[in-house]
């Protein structure tokens, strides 16, 4: 184990996978500028600065992926993905299927999002659910440095196109990261961060921490909350969520992304369709608002579900239970 930041864990994953597989290459605006050691170790052909043109960066990655390379592209901020939508959604996501399986698209599209840098809505937009909705793509959004490394390595080795979202607020967070070059976190496996029997808190990225803080506060009140970190949004680890729900009967979903048609809605639907018989309270969604991200620190923070909000939601759920029982 080594202690490092998320940014360092990402860098280590890139370096290890480029070392392991000569087909892996890195492209994007500034990747060669920022990662000089990778240029030195693997050559300028495999670490390529690009024009500031997301559509052609993504399109080039799609073409290269179908032709034997395993590109990783850094598209910087998630809102810029809309420029890359055609290549990612229409090409990478659909041409495997439309061609009858003639092509694979082993590529990773990295981008950053989330509040914390006061950069406003055109650099901060948790639009991950847009890609969850697109067939043929996988979507990853980790919360710990160890997972950033293990999931990025697994994404690079996956033969499918993977959207890899990095929460801006987590980039400088430190944590223990395995040194093992085979430290892989399989896509599609959620992590139970804390075990509990009274309520299931499901989240991913920065709001996992809010759930953990809430769980600690709730424990002081005698309420045992289970905290699930999804880590991968697609494929969704339904089994881990359902197993927890069968234990607790209560679900609170916490996301920074807005609620309409998002992951929180999907998890509420999962509970309603697959665990209705064990639900002891209505599902609660704590999400960001249907509003663009503001720049002002105060407004940016106001859009975030907090630990206090999670605690209140759980208390409300249990209070309703108490009223119903009396």
């Amino acid at each position, binding site marked *: 184990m080594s202690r490092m930041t998320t940014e360092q864990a990402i860098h280590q994953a890139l370096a290890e996978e480029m070392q392991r597989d000569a087909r892996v290459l890195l492209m994007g605006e500034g990747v060669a500028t920022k990662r000089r050691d990778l240029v030195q170790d693997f050559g300028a052909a495999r670490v390529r600065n690009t024009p500031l043109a997301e559509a052609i960066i993504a399109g080039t990655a799609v*073409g290269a992926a179908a032709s034997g390379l395993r590109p990783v592209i850094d598209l910087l901020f998630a809102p810029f993905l809309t420029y890359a939508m055609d290549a990612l959604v229409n090409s990478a996501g659909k041409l495997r299927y439309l061609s009858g399986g*003639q092509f694979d698209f082993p590529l990773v599209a990295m981008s950053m999002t989330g509040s914390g840098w006061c950069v406003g809505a055109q650099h901060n937009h948790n639009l991950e659910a847009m890609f969850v909705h697109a067939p043929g793509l996988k979507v990853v959004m980790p919360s710990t440095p160890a997972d950033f490394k293990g999931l990025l390595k697994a994404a690079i080795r996956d033969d499918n196109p993977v959207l890899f979202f990095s929460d801006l607020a987590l980039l400088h967070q430190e944590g223990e990261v395995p040194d093992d070059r085979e430290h892989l976190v*399989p896509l599609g496996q959620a992590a139970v961060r804390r075990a509990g029997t009274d309520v299931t808190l499901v989240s991913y990225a920065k709001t996992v921490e809010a759930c953990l803080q809430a769980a600690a506060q709730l424990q002081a009140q005698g309420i045992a909350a289970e905290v699930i970190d999804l880590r991968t949004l697609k494929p969704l680890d339904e089994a881990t969520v359902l197993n927890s729900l069968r234990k607790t009967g209560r679900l609170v979903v916490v996301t920074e992304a807005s609620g309409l048609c998002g992951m929180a809605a999907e998890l509420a639907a999962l509970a309603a369709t697959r665990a209705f018989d064990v639900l002891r309270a209505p599902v609660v969604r704590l999400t960001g608002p249907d509003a663009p991200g503001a720049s002002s620190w105060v407004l940016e923070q106001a859009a975030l579900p907090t630990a206090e909000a999670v605690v209140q939601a759980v208390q409300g759920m249990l209070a309703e239970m108490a009223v119903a029982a009396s």
Partner: protein
Amino acid sequence: MLRVRAYEETLVELQRAGAPGTCTSVGQEACAVGVVDALEARDRILTNHRSAAHLIARGADPGRLMAEVLGRVDGYCGGRSGSLHISAKELGVVLTSTIVGGELSMAPGVALAQKMGQGEPGGIVAVFFGDGAACEGIFHESLNLAVQWQLPLLFVCENNDWQAFVHRRETMPDNAIADWAAGHGLPVATVDGNDVEAVHAAACEAVAAIRADGRPRFLELVTYRLRGHFEPDDQAYVDADELAHWQARDPVQNQADRLLAQNALDAAGLTQLRQQAAARIEAAVSFAQASAWPDPRTLTRHVYAEQGVQP
């Protein structure tokens, strides 16, 4: 060219009888045949929704193409593509996209993989698109990257005057897309796209140049879409005089006339070639219509690669 023409005219008849419509390339056959014949087996081709001529020129089996158009299991893509995005990896026709400009977005990546040693040594990539795609922003991004990264890529613009249902004169102030390419620093050639020998000569020259220095080239083929955007299409929006002008320049008839004039072909020989093409397409129709429908239980097969994380 005769086989392409027979294939697409048969598709028009099938559509009238209820088969799915297609985007034909009637009138543009010389572009496809002239360029594809200048390529080698080690080269890769990207095309678009108007792809039949490129595929047939590359040696695609008209029966499997037609089966794909009809949505049958023996099609090149198992019936999942239909006419609009037929890829045939075994022929080197890859990543066919019906998104106008999609082919231009992916072509640099295919050429980059080639440059980085993934294809057969010395192979190049040719990408076919039209004047409509040239009006997409990705056109410029694609050309710029190909020049900057020195990619072995042949851009082939079939300027057919039509962008779906809109004439090119309504969409761009210039006539020459090659001028835009030249602005990106690309060596360009503009050729009569209805003259298969002229297209072939220009394509051979461009291909040889790309193989020699590994840098991209641009070919603008001036041609015309003789049929509508998508069958059925009554072309009521087409100027009759303009259409008549281009019908008189039919690339298939022109080449037949030229060969007859050169005594390279006689009338009986031409008749025989036409009959051979017709027989080939007739067999293709029989093959396609006899092909099974895909099993609905396979609906979600091929969405994802099975190989995920290697433990």
